[in-house]
Protein backbone atom coordinates (compact mmCIF):
# COMPACT_ATOMS: atom_id res chain seq x y z
CA UNK A 1 0.00 0.00 0.00
CA UNK A 2 1.31 3.42 -0.80
CA UNK A 3 1.84 5.78 2.09
CA UNK A 4 2.16 8.98 0.10
CA UNK A 5 0.72 9.49 -3.33
CA UNK A 6 1.20 12.67 -5.34
CA UNK A 7 -1.00 13.01 -8.42
CA UNK A 8 -0.16 15.47 -11.19
CA UNK A 9 1.11 18.11 -8.81
CA UNK A 10 1.97 21.47 -10.36
CA UNK A 11 3.12 24.55 -8.52
CA UNK A 12 3.69 28.00 -9.94
CA UNK A 13 5.32 31.01 -8.35
CA UNK A 14 3.84 33.78 -10.45
CA UNK A 15 5.04 32.98 -13.96
CA UNK A 16 7.60 30.40 -12.89
CA UNK A 17 6.53 26.79 -12.86
CA UNK A 18 8.57 25.32 -10.05
CA UNK A 19 7.03 21.86 -10.12
CA UNK A 20 5.10 20.53 -13.07
CA UNK A 21 2.94 17.43 -13.31
CA UNK A 22 4.83 15.52 -10.71
CA UNK A 23 3.63 12.05 -9.83
CA UNK A 24 5.06 10.26 -6.85
CA UNK A 25 4.28 7.15 -4.92
CA UNK A 26 6.02 6.20 -1.68
CA UNK A 27 5.47 2.72 -0.31
CA UNK A 28 5.58 1.79 3.31
CA UNK A 29 8.96 1.03 4.83
CA UNK A 30 11.32 1.99 2.02
CA UNK A 31 13.93 4.70 1.56
CA UNK A 32 13.41 7.09 -1.33
CA UNK A 33 15.73 9.66 -2.79
CA UNK A 34 14.87 12.84 -4.62
CA UNK A 35 17.78 14.36 -6.50
CA UNK A 36 18.36 16.96 -9.14
CA UNK A 37 20.61 19.90 -9.94
CA UNK A 38 20.41 23.15 -7.99
CA UNK A 39 17.11 24.93 -8.43
CA UNK A 40 15.38 21.82 -9.75
CA UNK A 41 12.49 22.23 -7.30
CA UNK A 42 13.33 19.49 -4.81
CA UNK A 43 12.83 21.57 -1.70
CA UNK A 44 9.68 23.03 -3.25
CA UNK A 45 8.29 19.49 -3.49
CA UNK A 46 9.08 18.99 0.21
CA UNK A 47 7.51 22.32 1.10
CA UNK A 48 4.39 21.41 -0.86
CA UNK A 49 4.02 18.11 0.94
CA UNK A 50 4.65 19.58 4.37
CA UNK A 51 2.07 22.30 3.79
CA UNK A 52 4.14 25.46 3.42
CA UNK A 53 2.74 25.89 -0.08
CA UNK A 54 -0.56 24.85 -1.48
CA UNK A 55 -0.07 23.24 -4.90
CA UNK A 56 -1.57 25.15 -7.85
CA UNK A 57 -2.87 21.88 -9.23
CA UNK A 58 -2.91 18.25 -8.28
CA UNK A 59 -3.44 16.25 -5.15
CA UNK A 60 -1.30 14.99 -2.29
CA UNK A 61 -2.64 11.92 -0.58
CA UNK A 62 -1.05 10.77 2.65
CA UNK A 63 -2.17 7.65 4.42
CA UNK A 64 -5.54 7.75 2.71
CA UNK A 65 -6.18 11.44 3.33
CA UNK A 66 -5.85 14.43 1.03
CA UNK A 67 -3.40 16.79 2.74
CA UNK A 68 -2.87 19.60 0.27
CA UNK A 69 -4.17 22.90 1.53
CA UNK A 70 -3.55 21.93 5.15
CA UNK A 71 -1.44 24.13 7.41
CA UNK A 72 2.04 22.72 8.18
CA UNK A 73 1.14 21.96 11.79
CA UNK A 74 -1.86 19.94 10.64
CA UNK A 75 0.36 17.97 8.29
CA UNK A 76 2.85 17.41 11.13
CA UNK A 77 0.10 16.21 13.42
CA UNK A 78 -0.75 13.57 10.80
CA UNK A 79 2.67 12.10 11.48
CA UNK A 80 5.02 13.46 8.90
CA UNK A 81 8.40 14.37 10.34
CA UNK A 82 10.77 16.66 8.55
CA UNK A 83 14.19 18.25 8.80
CA UNK A 84 15.67 21.17 6.88
CA UNK A 85 18.81 21.88 4.92
CA UNK A 86 20.06 24.15 7.67
CA UNK A 87 19.57 22.99 11.23
CA UNK A 88 16.46 24.49 12.74
CA UNK A 89 16.57 23.39 16.35
CA UNK A 90 15.36 25.88 18.94
CA UNK A 91 18.66 27.20 20.22
CA UNK A 92 17.26 28.66 23.41
CA UNK A 93 15.62 25.43 24.53
CA UNK A 94 17.36 22.36 25.84
CA UNK A 95 17.48 19.17 23.79
CA UNK A 96 14.78 17.71 26.03
CA UNK A 97 12.53 20.74 25.56
CA UNK A 98 13.07 20.55 21.82
CA UNK A 99 11.84 16.94 21.84
CA UNK A 100 8.93 17.71 24.15
CA UNK A 101 7.48 20.20 21.70
CA UNK A 102 6.33 17.33 19.49
CA UNK A 103 3.53 16.80 22.01
CA UNK A 104 2.29 20.33 21.61
CA UNK A 105 -0.59 19.43 19.32
CA UNK A 106 -1.78 16.61 21.59
CA UNK A 107 -1.24 18.16 25.00
CA UNK A 108 -4.69 17.26 26.29
CA UNK A 109 -4.77 20.24 28.63
CA UNK A 110 -5.46 23.92 28.09
CA UNK A 111 -4.50 27.34 29.36
CA UNK A 112 -6.77 27.09 32.39
CA UNK A 113 -5.08 23.83 33.41
CA UNK A 114 -1.72 25.59 33.17
CA UNK A 115 -2.85 28.54 35.30
CA UNK A 116 -4.34 26.34 38.01
CA UNK A 117 -1.74 23.58 37.71
CA UNK A 118 -4.46 20.96 37.65
CA UNK A 119 -3.93 17.26 38.12
CA UNK A 120 -4.48 16.74 34.40
CA UNK A 121 -1.73 19.25 33.58
CA UNK A 122 0.72 17.70 36.02
CA UNK A 123 0.16 14.13 34.85
CA UNK A 124 0.39 15.11 31.20
CA UNK A 125 3.60 17.10 31.68
CA UNK A 126 5.09 14.17 33.51
CA UNK A 127 4.08 11.74 30.78
CA UNK A 128 5.47 14.03 28.10
CA UNK A 129 8.82 14.35 29.89
CA UNK A 130 9.01 10.60 30.40
CA UNK A 131 8.20 9.86 26.77
CA UNK A 132 10.77 12.38 25.60
CA UNK A 133 13.41 10.89 27.91
CA UNK A 134 12.62 7.42 26.59
CA UNK A 135 13.12 8.62 23.05
CA UNK A 136 16.41 10.29 23.99
CA UNK A 137 17.53 7.04 25.53
CA UNK A 138 16.80 5.16 22.30
CA UNK A 139 18.93 7.75 20.53
CA UNK A 140 21.62 7.57 23.22
CA UNK A 141 21.24 11.30 23.78
CA UNK A 142 20.25 11.09 27.44
CA UNK A 143 23.45 12.79 28.58
CA UNK A 144 22.71 15.77 26.38
CA UNK A 145 19.10 16.20 27.52
CA UNK A 146 19.80 19.44 29.36
CA UNK A 147 22.30 20.88 26.91
CA UNK A 148 21.39 23.63 24.52
CA UNK A 149 21.81 22.67 20.86
CA UNK A 150 24.19 25.55 20.16
CA UNK A 151 26.74 23.99 22.52
CA UNK A 152 26.77 20.72 20.58
CA UNK A 153 28.93 19.77 17.56
CA UNK A 154 27.25 20.11 14.18
CA UNK A 155 27.04 16.38 13.57
CA UNK A 156 25.30 15.83 16.90
CA UNK A 157 22.91 18.70 16.18
CA UNK A 158 21.89 16.85 13.00
CA UNK A 159 21.14 13.76 15.02
CA UNK A 160 19.15 15.73 17.55
CA UNK A 161 17.17 17.29 14.73
CA UNK A 162 16.39 13.88 13.26
CA UNK A 163 15.44 12.64 16.74
CA UNK A 164 13.16 15.64 17.13
CA UNK A 165 11.44 14.88 13.82
CA UNK A 166 10.99 11.28 14.95
CA UNK A 167 9.48 12.37 18.25
CA UNK A 168 6.33 13.16 16.29
CA UNK A 169 6.02 9.40 15.79
CA UNK A 170 5.98 9.79 12.03
CA UNK A 171 5.28 7.13 9.43
CA UNK A 172 7.14 9.25 6.91
CA UNK A 173 10.39 11.06 7.63
CA UNK A 174 11.47 13.70 5.14
CA UNK A 175 15.15 14.65 5.26
CA UNK A 176 16.23 17.70 3.32
CA UNK A 177 19.95 17.32 2.64
CA UNK A 178 20.88 15.62 5.90
CA UNK A 179 24.54 15.47 4.92
CA UNK A 180 24.87 19.17 4.12
CA UNK A 181 27.77 20.70 5.99
CA UNK A 182 29.04 17.44 7.45
CA UNK A 183 32.65 16.26 7.24
CA UNK A 184 33.46 13.04 5.36
CA UNK A 185 33.70 11.07 8.59
CA UNK A 186 30.38 12.47 9.78
CA UNK A 187 28.75 11.52 6.48
CA UNK A 188 29.75 7.88 6.93
CA UNK A 189 28.28 7.98 10.42
CA UNK A 190 25.14 9.64 9.16
CA UNK A 191 24.58 6.84 6.64
CA UNK A 192 24.74 4.24 9.41
CA UNK A 193 22.55 6.43 11.56
CA UNK A 194 19.83 6.74 8.94
CA UNK A 195 19.99 2.98 8.33
CA UNK A 196 19.63 2.42 12.04
CA UNK A 197 16.69 4.86 12.28
CA UNK A 198 15.02 3.12 9.36
CA UNK A 199 15.36 -0.31 10.92
CA UNK A 200 14.54 0.72 14.48
CA UNK A 201 11.45 2.77 13.75
CA UNK A 202 10.36 0.87 10.66
CA UNK A 203 9.38 4.01 8.80
CA UNK A 204 9.46 5.35 5.28
CA UNK A 205 12.29 7.79 4.65
CA UNK A 206 12.28 10.30 1.83
CA UNK A 207 15.39 12.37 1.34
CA UNK A 208 16.88 15.07 -0.79
CA UNK A 209 20.63 14.80 -1.00
CA UNK A 210 23.46 16.02 -3.13
CA UNK A 211 26.06 13.58 -1.91
CA UNK A 212 25.75 10.57 -4.17
CA UNK A 213 27.46 8.39 -1.59
CA UNK A 214 24.53 8.89 0.77
CA UNK A 215 21.83 8.48 -1.87
CA UNK A 216 23.34 5.42 -3.53
CA UNK A 217 24.05 3.53 -0.35
CA UNK A 218 20.67 4.18 1.26
CA UNK A 219 17.90 4.56 -1.28
CA UNK A 220 15.72 1.81 -2.62
CA UNK A 221 14.42 4.05 -5.33
CA UNK A 222 15.47 7.41 -6.70
CA UNK A 223 13.64 10.08 -8.64
CA UNK A 224 15.51 12.76 -10.53
CA UNK A 225 13.89 16.09 -11.30
CA UNK A 226 15.11 19.06 -13.28
CA UNK A 227 13.24 22.31 -13.84
CA UNK A 228 10.39 20.85 -11.81
CA UNK A 229 9.94 17.90 -14.13
CA UNK A 230 10.69 14.27 -13.59
CA UNK A 231 13.52 13.11 -15.83
CA UNK A 232 14.21 9.69 -14.39
CA UNK A 233 12.94 7.25 -11.80
CA UNK A 234 14.43 3.93 -10.86
CA UNK A 235 16.73 1.90 -8.62
CA UNK A 236 20.19 3.43 -7.95
CA UNK A 237 21.97 1.47 -10.70
CA UNK A 238 19.52 2.63 -13.34
CA UNK A 239 19.89 6.24 -12.28
CA UNK A 240 23.70 6.13 -12.27
CA UNK A 241 23.77 5.11 -15.90
CA UNK A 242 20.87 7.19 -17.18
CA UNK A 243 22.12 9.59 -19.90
CA UNK A 244 19.33 12.09 -19.14
CA UNK A 245 20.52 12.38 -15.56
CA UNK A 246 24.14 12.83 -16.54
CA UNK A 247 23.07 15.51 -19.01
CA UNK A 248 21.09 17.36 -16.38
CA UNK A 249 23.96 17.33 -13.93
CA UNK A 250 26.91 17.91 -16.23
CA UNK A 251 25.44 19.61 -19.28
CA UNK A 252 25.17 18.51 -22.92
CA UNK A 253 28.88 18.47 -23.62
CA UNK A 254 29.53 15.65 -21.18
CA UNK A 255 28.01 13.03 -23.41
Amino acid at each position, binding site marked *: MSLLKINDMTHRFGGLTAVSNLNYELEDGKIYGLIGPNGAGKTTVFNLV*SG*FYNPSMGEINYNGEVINGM*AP*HDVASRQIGRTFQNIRL*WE*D*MTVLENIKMSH*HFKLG*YNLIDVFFKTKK*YQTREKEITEEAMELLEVFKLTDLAHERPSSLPYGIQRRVEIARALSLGPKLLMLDEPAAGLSTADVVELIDYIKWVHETFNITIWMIEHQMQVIMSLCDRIKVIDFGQEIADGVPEEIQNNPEVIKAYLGDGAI
Partner: protein
Amino acid sequence: MDNAITLVNKKHINLWPAVLGGGALIILGLVLGGVINQYIQTVLMFIGINIILSASLNIVNGYMGEFSCGHGGFMLVGAYTSSILSVLFFTKSPWLGAPLLPPSSAVFLFPLVIIGGGIVAAFAGLLVAIPSFKTRDDYLAIITIAANFIFVSLVNNLEFIGGSRGFMGMKTTIYAMEDVADLPFTLIWTMVFSTLSVFLIRRLMRSTFGKGISSIRHDEISAEIMGVNTNNMKIVAFMVSSGLAGIAGGLFAHVLGFINPSSFNIMKSTECLVMVYLGGMGSLSGSVLSAVVFTFLLEVMRPLQILKWVIIPLMLILLMQFRPEGLMGNRELTDIFPKLKPYFKRRDL
Protein backbone atom coordinates in the same frame (compact mmCIF):
# COMPACT_ATOMS: atom_id res chain seq x y z
CA MET B 1 5.11 16.85 42.51
CA ASP B 2 5.90 18.31 45.91
CA ASN B 3 6.39 14.84 47.34
CA ALA B 4 8.87 13.87 44.66
CA ILE B 5 11.00 16.88 45.36
CA THR B 6 11.09 16.40 49.11
CA LEU B 7 12.11 12.80 48.44
CA VAL B 8 14.99 13.85 46.26
CA ASN B 9 16.36 16.59 48.43
CA LYS B 10 15.04 17.93 51.68
CA LYS B 11 16.67 21.27 51.00
CA HIS B 12 14.30 21.93 48.12
CA ILE B 13 11.81 24.03 50.00
CA ASN B 14 9.70 26.45 48.08
CA LEU B 15 10.28 29.79 49.70
CA TRP B 16 7.97 31.78 47.42
CA PRO B 17 4.84 31.64 49.60
CA ALA B 18 6.83 32.64 52.69
CA VAL B 19 8.65 35.52 50.99
CA LEU B 20 5.55 36.93 49.33
CA GLY B 21 3.18 36.38 52.23
CA GLY B 22 5.71 37.84 54.67
CA GLY B 23 6.42 40.82 52.45
CA ALA B 24 2.73 41.56 52.00
CA LEU B 25 2.06 41.29 55.72
CA ILE B 26 4.97 43.60 56.54
CA ILE B 27 3.76 46.21 54.07
CA LEU B 28 0.22 45.90 55.37
CA GLY B 29 1.44 46.20 58.94
CA LEU B 30 3.47 49.29 58.11
CA VAL B 31 0.49 50.87 56.37
CA LEU B 32 -1.92 50.15 59.20
CA GLY B 33 0.65 51.24 61.77
CA GLY B 34 0.89 54.57 59.95
CA VAL B 35 4.58 54.16 59.09
CA ILE B 36 3.94 54.28 55.36
CA ASN B 37 2.20 57.43 54.26
CA GLN B 38 -0.21 57.92 51.40
CA TYR B 39 2.57 58.94 49.02
CA ILE B 40 4.65 55.82 49.58
CA GLN B 41 1.51 53.71 49.24
CA THR B 42 0.85 55.28 45.85
CA VAL B 43 4.40 54.55 44.76
CA LEU B 44 4.00 50.95 45.91
CA MET B 45 0.80 50.68 43.91
CA PHE B 46 2.48 52.07 40.82
CA ILE B 47 5.24 49.53 41.28
CA GLY B 48 2.62 46.76 41.33
CA ILE B 49 0.89 48.12 38.24
CA ASN B 50 4.18 48.51 36.41
CA ILE B 51 5.17 44.97 37.31
CA ILE B 52 2.00 43.72 35.62
CA LEU B 53 2.62 45.94 32.61
CA SER B 54 6.24 44.98 32.03
CA ALA B 55 5.75 41.28 32.76
CA SER B 56 2.76 41.06 30.45
CA LEU B 57 4.44 42.95 27.62
CA ASN B 58 7.37 40.61 28.04
CA ILE B 59 5.17 37.72 26.85
CA VAL B 60 4.91 39.28 23.41
CA ASN B 61 8.14 41.26 23.13
CA GLY B 62 10.39 38.96 25.09
CA TYR B 63 9.13 35.41 24.91
CA MET B 64 7.40 35.54 21.54
CA GLY B 65 9.90 37.91 19.95
CA GLU B 66 7.39 40.20 18.30
CA PHE B 67 7.48 43.94 18.79
CA SER B 68 4.28 45.27 20.31
CA CYS B 69 4.26 48.96 21.10
CA GLY B 70 0.58 49.45 21.79
CA HIS B 71 0.42 48.16 25.33
CA GLY B 72 -1.09 51.43 26.53
CA GLY B 73 -4.08 50.85 24.29
CA PHE B 74 -5.02 47.62 26.03
CA MET B 75 -4.47 49.26 29.36
CA LEU B 76 -6.97 51.90 28.28
CA VAL B 77 -9.58 49.29 27.36
CA GLY B 78 -9.20 47.63 30.75
CA ALA B 79 -9.16 50.93 32.61
CA TYR B 80 -12.33 52.24 30.98
CA THR B 81 -14.19 48.93 31.18
CA SER B 82 -13.52 48.41 34.87
CA SER B 83 -14.13 52.09 35.66
CA ILE B 84 -17.51 52.02 33.93
CA LEU B 85 -18.43 48.75 35.64
CA SER B 86 -17.32 50.14 38.96
CA VAL B 87 -19.28 53.37 38.58
CA LEU B 88 -22.30 51.60 37.15
CA PHE B 89 -22.56 49.00 39.89
CA PHE B 90 -21.35 50.70 43.02
CA THR B 91 -21.77 54.45 42.77
CA LYS B 92 -24.38 57.04 42.14
CA SER B 93 -23.35 59.08 39.16
CA PRO B 94 -25.16 61.84 37.24
CA TRP B 95 -25.41 59.91 34.00
CA LEU B 96 -25.19 56.24 34.90
CA GLY B 97 -27.79 56.70 37.62
CA ALA B 98 -28.15 54.97 40.95
CA PRO B 99 -25.83 52.06 41.79
CA LEU B 100 -27.14 48.73 40.50
CA LEU B 101 -25.79 46.96 43.57
CA PRO B 102 -25.37 48.09 47.17
CA PRO B 103 -22.05 50.00 47.27
CA SER B 104 -20.82 47.90 50.19
CA SER B 105 -20.83 44.81 47.97
CA ALA B 106 -17.80 46.32 46.23
CA VAL B 107 -15.68 44.76 48.97
CA PHE B 108 -16.32 41.37 47.41
CA LEU B 109 -17.00 42.32 43.82
CA PHE B 110 -14.12 44.74 43.23
CA PRO B 111 -11.73 42.05 41.94
CA LEU B 112 -14.42 40.91 39.51
CA VAL B 113 -14.69 44.44 38.15
CA ILE B 114 -10.93 44.49 37.56
CA ILE B 115 -10.99 41.03 35.97
CA GLY B 116 -13.90 42.17 33.78
CA GLY B 117 -11.69 44.94 32.43
CA GLY B 118 -8.97 42.36 31.81
CA ILE B 119 -11.31 40.11 29.86
CA VAL B 120 -12.53 42.91 27.59
CA ALA B 121 -8.92 44.02 27.04
CA ALA B 122 -7.99 40.43 26.18
CA PHE B 123 -10.57 40.47 23.40
CA ALA B 124 -9.28 43.86 22.28
CA GLY B 125 -5.95 42.05 21.92
CA LEU B 126 -7.47 40.11 19.02
CA LEU B 127 -7.21 43.32 17.02
CA VAL B 128 -3.45 42.74 16.93
CA ALA B 129 -3.42 38.97 17.27
CA ILE B 130 -5.28 38.31 14.03
CA PRO B 131 -3.08 40.53 11.82
CA SER B 132 -0.06 38.83 13.41
CA PHE B 133 -0.88 35.60 11.55
CA LYS B 134 0.39 37.11 8.33
CA THR B 135 2.42 40.10 9.49
CA ARG B 136 5.63 40.14 11.44
CA ASP B 137 8.36 42.35 12.86
CA ASP B 138 8.29 46.04 11.91
CA TYR B 139 4.99 45.72 10.10
CA LEU B 140 3.30 44.18 13.10
CA ALA B 141 4.84 46.88 15.28
CA ILE B 142 3.13 49.48 13.11
CA ILE B 143 -0.18 47.65 13.51
CA THR B 144 0.20 47.71 17.28
CA ILE B 145 0.87 51.45 17.23
CA ALA B 146 -2.22 51.87 15.05
CA ALA B 147 -4.27 49.84 17.53
CA ASN B 148 -3.08 52.10 20.32
CA PHE B 149 -4.21 55.15 18.34
CA ILE B 150 -7.56 53.54 17.53
CA PHE B 151 -8.38 52.96 21.19
CA VAL B 152 -7.29 56.44 22.24
CA SER B 153 -9.20 58.20 19.44
CA LEU B 154 -12.24 56.01 19.98
CA VAL B 155 -12.54 57.02 23.62
CA ASN B 156 -11.69 60.63 22.77
CA ASN B 157 -14.80 60.66 20.62
CA LEU B 158 -17.14 58.76 22.91
CA GLU B 159 -18.80 61.73 24.60
CA PHE B 160 -21.02 59.66 26.88
CA ILE B 161 -18.00 58.43 28.82
CA GLY B 162 -16.46 61.85 28.95
CA GLY B 163 -14.45 61.88 25.72
CA SER B 164 -11.15 63.66 26.07
CA ARG B 165 -12.26 65.26 29.34
CA GLY B 166 -11.84 61.92 31.03
CA PHE B 167 -13.81 59.75 33.35
CA MET B 168 -14.03 59.75 37.11
CA GLY B 169 -15.97 58.42 40.07
CA MET B 170 -13.93 55.32 40.78
CA LYS B 171 -12.76 56.75 44.10
CA THR B 172 -16.36 56.58 45.33
CA THR B 173 -16.20 52.80 44.95
CA ILE B 174 -12.98 52.73 46.94
CA TYR B 175 -14.53 54.92 49.66
CA ALA B 176 -17.54 52.58 49.76
CA MET B 177 -15.15 49.70 50.35
CA GLU B 178 -13.26 51.58 53.03
CA ASP B 179 -16.56 52.29 54.78
CA VAL B 180 -17.03 48.56 55.27
CA ALA B 181 -13.53 47.91 56.56
CA ASP B 182 -10.76 50.43 57.07
CA LEU B 183 -8.13 48.75 54.96
CA PRO B 184 -5.96 50.02 52.07
CA PHE B 185 -8.00 48.09 49.50
CA THR B 186 -6.35 49.40 46.34
CA LEU B 187 -2.93 48.57 47.73
CA ILE B 188 -4.03 45.07 48.73
CA TRP B 189 -5.59 44.31 45.36
CA THR B 190 -2.66 45.77 43.47
CA MET B 191 -0.31 43.49 45.39
CA VAL B 192 -2.60 40.50 44.85
CA PHE B 193 -3.02 41.09 41.14
CA SER B 194 0.62 41.82 40.43
CA THR B 195 1.74 38.71 42.29
CA LEU B 196 -0.85 36.59 40.53
CA SER B 197 0.13 37.98 37.13
CA VAL B 198 3.78 37.16 37.65
CA PHE B 199 2.90 33.66 38.82
CA LEU B 200 0.53 32.99 35.95
CA ILE B 201 3.10 34.14 33.42
CA ARG B 202 5.74 32.02 35.12
CA ARG B 203 3.53 28.95 34.95
CA LEU B 204 2.55 29.64 31.38
CA MET B 205 6.10 30.11 30.15
CA ARG B 206 7.33 26.98 31.87
CA SER B 207 4.66 24.66 30.55
CA THR B 208 5.08 22.79 27.30
CA PHE B 209 2.01 24.70 26.18
CA GLY B 210 3.68 28.05 26.82
CA LYS B 211 6.94 26.92 25.26
CA GLY B 212 4.93 27.03 22.06
CA ILE B 213 5.11 30.82 22.43
CA SER B 214 8.90 30.86 22.76
CA SER B 215 9.20 28.39 19.89
CA ILE B 216 7.80 31.12 17.65
CA ARG B 217 10.53 33.56 18.64
CA HIS B 218 13.35 31.34 17.67
CA ASP B 219 11.97 29.60 14.64
CA GLU B 220 8.40 29.86 13.54
CA ILE B 221 8.92 27.38 10.69
CA SER B 222 10.34 24.83 13.10
CA ALA B 223 7.34 25.37 15.32
CA GLU B 224 4.92 24.63 12.50
CA ILE B 225 6.84 21.58 11.34
CA MET B 226 6.71 20.18 14.86
CA GLY B 227 2.95 20.52 14.96
CA VAL B 228 2.68 23.76 16.95
CA ASN B 229 -0.35 25.74 15.83
CA THR B 230 1.47 29.06 15.73
CA ASN B 231 -1.68 31.07 15.03
CA ASN B 232 -3.27 29.70 18.18
CA MET B 233 -0.17 30.45 20.20
CA LYS B 234 -0.10 34.02 18.90
CA ILE B 235 -3.72 34.46 19.97
CA VAL B 236 -2.89 33.07 23.42
CA ALA B 237 0.17 35.31 23.77
CA PHE B 238 -1.56 38.49 22.65
CA MET B 239 -4.72 37.82 24.64
CA VAL B 240 -2.94 36.98 27.88
CA SER B 241 -0.63 39.95 27.42
CA SER B 242 -3.36 42.47 26.64
CA GLY B 243 -5.69 40.97 29.24
CA LEU B 244 -3.11 41.53 31.96
CA ALA B 245 -2.49 45.04 30.63
CA GLY B 246 -6.23 45.57 31.03
CA ILE B 247 -6.03 44.44 34.65
CA ALA B 248 -3.16 46.88 35.20
CA GLY B 249 -5.31 49.57 33.59
CA GLY B 250 -8.24 48.82 35.88
CA LEU B 251 -6.04 49.09 38.94
CA PHE B 252 -4.44 52.27 37.61
CA ALA B 253 -7.89 53.83 37.16
CA HIS B 254 -8.90 52.99 40.72
CA VAL B 255 -5.62 54.18 42.20
CA LEU B 256 -5.86 57.57 40.50
CA GLY B 257 -9.64 57.88 40.56
CA PHE B 258 -9.50 59.72 37.26
CA ILE B 259 -8.55 58.63 33.78
CA ASN B 260 -8.48 60.28 30.40
CA PRO B 261 -7.53 58.80 27.05
CA SER B 262 -4.24 60.64 26.82
CA SER B 263 -2.96 58.81 29.92
CA PHE B 264 -2.81 55.72 27.71
CA ASN B 265 -1.28 57.08 24.56
CA ILE B 266 1.95 56.06 22.92
CA MET B 267 3.87 57.61 25.84
CA LYS B 268 2.46 54.97 28.18
CA SER B 269 3.28 52.24 25.70
CA THR B 270 6.82 53.58 25.54
CA GLU B 271 7.11 53.39 29.31
CA CYS B 272 6.11 49.72 29.10
CA LEU B 273 8.70 49.12 26.40
CA VAL B 274 11.42 50.83 28.42
CA MET B 275 10.65 48.56 31.36
CA VAL B 276 10.77 45.39 29.25
CA TYR B 277 14.06 46.34 27.62
CA LEU B 278 15.54 47.59 30.87
CA GLY B 279 14.78 44.27 32.55
CA GLY B 280 15.78 42.04 29.70
CA MET B 281 13.64 40.35 27.14
CA GLY B 282 12.38 36.96 28.15
CA SER B 283 13.37 37.41 31.79
CA LEU B 284 10.47 37.52 34.18
CA SER B 285 12.55 38.49 37.19
CA GLY B 286 14.12 41.15 34.98
CA SER B 287 10.68 42.57 34.26
CA VAL B 288 9.80 42.72 37.92
CA LEU B 289 13.14 44.26 38.83
CA SER B 290 12.96 46.86 36.10
CA ALA B 291 9.40 47.80 37.04
CA VAL B 292 10.64 48.55 40.56
CA VAL B 293 13.72 50.44 39.37
CA PHE B 294 11.80 52.37 36.74
CA THR B 295 9.02 53.45 39.09
CA PHE B 296 11.60 54.68 41.60
CA LEU B 297 13.45 56.57 38.89
CA LEU B 298 10.24 58.24 37.77
CA GLU B 299 9.54 59.34 41.32
CA VAL B 300 13.08 60.53 41.91
CA MET B 301 12.95 62.56 38.71
CA ARG B 302 9.54 64.02 39.44
CA PRO B 303 11.05 67.44 40.40
CA LEU B 304 12.60 67.62 36.94
CA GLN B 305 9.08 67.70 35.50
CA ILE B 306 9.05 67.70 31.73
CA LEU B 307 12.82 67.18 31.63
CA LYS B 308 12.33 63.59 32.71
CA TRP B 309 11.01 62.93 29.23
CA VAL B 310 14.42 63.90 27.98
CA ILE B 311 16.24 61.78 30.52
CA ILE B 312 14.17 58.59 30.19
CA PRO B 313 14.58 58.29 26.41
CA LEU B 314 18.24 59.15 26.86
CA MET B 315 18.52 56.27 29.31
CA LEU B 316 16.96 54.03 26.70
CA ILE B 317 19.53 55.12 24.13
CA LEU B 318 22.39 54.49 26.54
CA LEU B 319 20.90 51.15 27.55
CA MET B 320 20.64 49.99 23.96
CA GLN B 321 24.22 51.16 23.31
CA PHE B 322 25.92 49.61 26.28
CA ARG B 323 23.70 46.82 27.52
CA PRO B 324 21.22 45.86 24.82
CA GLU B 325 20.27 42.67 26.62
CA GLY B 326 18.90 44.63 29.58
CA LEU B 327 19.67 44.23 33.28
CA MET B 328 19.10 40.49 33.29
CA GLY B 329 19.51 39.41 29.67
CA ASN B 330 17.22 36.45 29.25
CA ARG B 331 18.36 34.99 32.53
CA GLU B 332 16.38 34.72 35.72
CA LEU B 333 17.51 35.75 39.17
CA THR B 334 18.25 32.13 40.05
CA ASP B 335 20.65 31.87 37.10
CA ILE B 336 22.69 34.75 38.46
CA PHE B 337 22.59 33.56 42.06
CA PRO B 338 22.58 29.77 41.71
CA LYS B 339 22.65 29.39 45.48
CA LEU B 340 19.08 30.68 45.58
CA LYS B 341 17.96 27.82 43.37
CA PRO B 342 17.08 25.25 46.03
CA TYR B 343 14.82 27.77 47.72
CA PHE B 344 13.01 29.05 44.67
CA LYS B 345 13.25 25.81 42.80
CA ARG B 346 10.94 25.47 39.85
CA ARG B 347 8.89 22.48 40.66
CA ASP B 348 10.01 20.44 37.75
CA LEU B 349 7.55 17.96 36.40
